[in-house]
């Protein structure tokens, strides 16, 4: 379970997150939506401990993150970063194996159990066949799946994803989010997912948090948050919300900006 309490973050003197509180329960996917620059990435990065925090506290499975060393933190939280630049020369297998770092000694010696975890993680994202390929040879979508596999190999109870569908085509967007949903359900992970696509959020998230200008404007199930009033105001764009023709979710249709 991830529990964020009154989190404030500033870049220089500019506040980026203002008193954000958010709870992600185990077994649950929480989607973080909001316009560009609202602070979604900052929230994910601050929750993973790589951005200095100005105020507030973050609890991961009952432990306060600021009191933990990076290695202990990495056993609780794994991250699929946004559009990450990956060193192209490593193989897929080597890259995913590095997800085992929090369980390895300083020299990075791996055991058979570690390799088994890596294999499982690659199978989960349907990328085992890519094992021997170099990262630089992969498409953006394939790289995204490798990053998810690396996070899974890290075997943490909390999974943070920053725009994981950004480079994926339609098939893999659905594939990845179904997978993420399955991880929450089956492995009882707490998943926080920053995502631009409101309709993907509506379909795959249990709860949706709407972040605007560094503040949580609304939090609740998709029907409560993805309303015409809230979304139109947050994105400065008229929208219509209709029932999804075949899924049990709202469907947001953007209007025209003029």
């Amino acid at each position, binding site marked *: 379970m991830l529990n964020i309490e009154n989190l404030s973050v500033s870049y220089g003197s500019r506040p980026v997150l203002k008193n954000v509180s958010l709870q992600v329960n185990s077994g649950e996917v929480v989607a973080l939506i909001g316009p560009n620059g609202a602070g979604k990435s900052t929230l994910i990065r601050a929750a993973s*401990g790589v951005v200095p925090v100005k105020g507030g506290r973050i609890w991961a499975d009952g432990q306060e993150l600021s009191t933990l060393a990076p*290695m202990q933190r990495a056993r609780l939280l794994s991250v699929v970063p946004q559009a990450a630049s990956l060193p192209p020369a490593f193989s897929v297998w080597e890259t995913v194996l590095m997800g085992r770092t929090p369980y390895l000694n300083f020299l990075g010696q791996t055991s058979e159990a570690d390799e088994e975890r890596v294999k499982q993680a690659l199978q989960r994202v349907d990328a085992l066949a890519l094992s021997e390929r170099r990262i630089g040879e992969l498409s953006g979508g394939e790289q995204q799946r490798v990053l998810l596999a690396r996070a899974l190999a890290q075997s943490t109870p909390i999974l943070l994803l920053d725009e994981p569908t950004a480079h994926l085509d339609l098939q893999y967007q659905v594939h990845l989010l179904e997978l993420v949903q399955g991880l929450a359900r089956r492995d009882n992970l707490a998943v926080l997912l920053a995502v631009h696509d409101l309709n993907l959020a509506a379909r795959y998230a249990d709860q949706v948090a709407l972040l605007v200008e560094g503040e949580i404007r609304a939090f609740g199930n998709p029907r409560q948050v993805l309303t015409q009033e809230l979304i139109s105001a947050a994105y400065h764009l008229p929208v219509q919300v209709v029932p999804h023709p075949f899924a049990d979710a709202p469907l947001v249709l953007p209007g025209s900006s003029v």
Partner: protein
Amino acid sequence: MKIRPYFYLLLLLLLAVILSIAIGSVFIPPADLWRVLTGKSPQVVAQAAFIIAALRLPRTALVALTGAALGGSGTAYQGLFRNPLADPYLIGVASGAGLGAVAAMSIQWPYTFWGLMAVPIAAFLGALLTVFIVYALARVGKTLPTTNLILAGVAISAFASALTSFLMLRSTGELRRAIAWLLGGSSQAGWEPVLAILPYVLLGLGTLVLFGHTLNLLQFGDEQAQQMGLNVTRTRTLILLTASLTTAAAVAFSGIIGFIGLIVPHIMRLWQGSDYRRLLPLSILGGASALLLADVLARVILAPQELPVGIITALAGAPFFLWVLRKAKNQGYW
């Protein structure tokens, strides 16, 4: 783990060592070398035995240690800065170390044994000072653009070299030797310099090879490395200190030798991939062999006159540097 590349490199190193012992102003045929080493019929080869023990062996040891140190620290800098051009020479660390060493020499440290042992420490302090200045100048936020790194390196390097020249001109005597030293002459004779750098090189390289996994993680950037559980600030500092100590030890008695720390890691990377757990030991072996071969060339090209080995490495290294620059620009293959 693949053993074969290490085996090839050890063979190459052995060959380089034999050449380095055999070739010089007096050529020692391999047969005589064998006799000396096995102790058979010593009176026939007494002169050869003297040359080997007093001149060739210490020089070979010094050059091999220097090359190993440059290869290892070059690899570490490249990995640490995630920059293919971060070579101890190009980023100014070597010049800083040279300044430190010359400063120590100009106040006549080397005339006692402990003074001699302390020259690498002075070089180390000079190296650390430059690496922090260059890093601070070149850094933009959390990134370290190649152009900034090279520009800051060149500027600081020029500054340190100017100070070094000033110190050398002020000091009396032995000026010629000091200049040859600065060009990488390895003209220091005897076993003292070998003993003086041995502990630092062993400590430095022995520590660096342990950082293979850490350097692999750092290739993903500080943020991802930390998210995977690495204490980034602490390990970065440790690697920087160790690599600078190693560079300083190399510079302290062999002068400023460019491009070994750049070329060798690149060749190893092209040959055996980017895993720093392999790359570090391979570059150490490769660095020792490469500098030994360059030193042999320096002895034969204008024989009986000797060229400073830095000229050979620069002649081979500068075109390679331009090639890497072009490749890095075009493909971002790093």
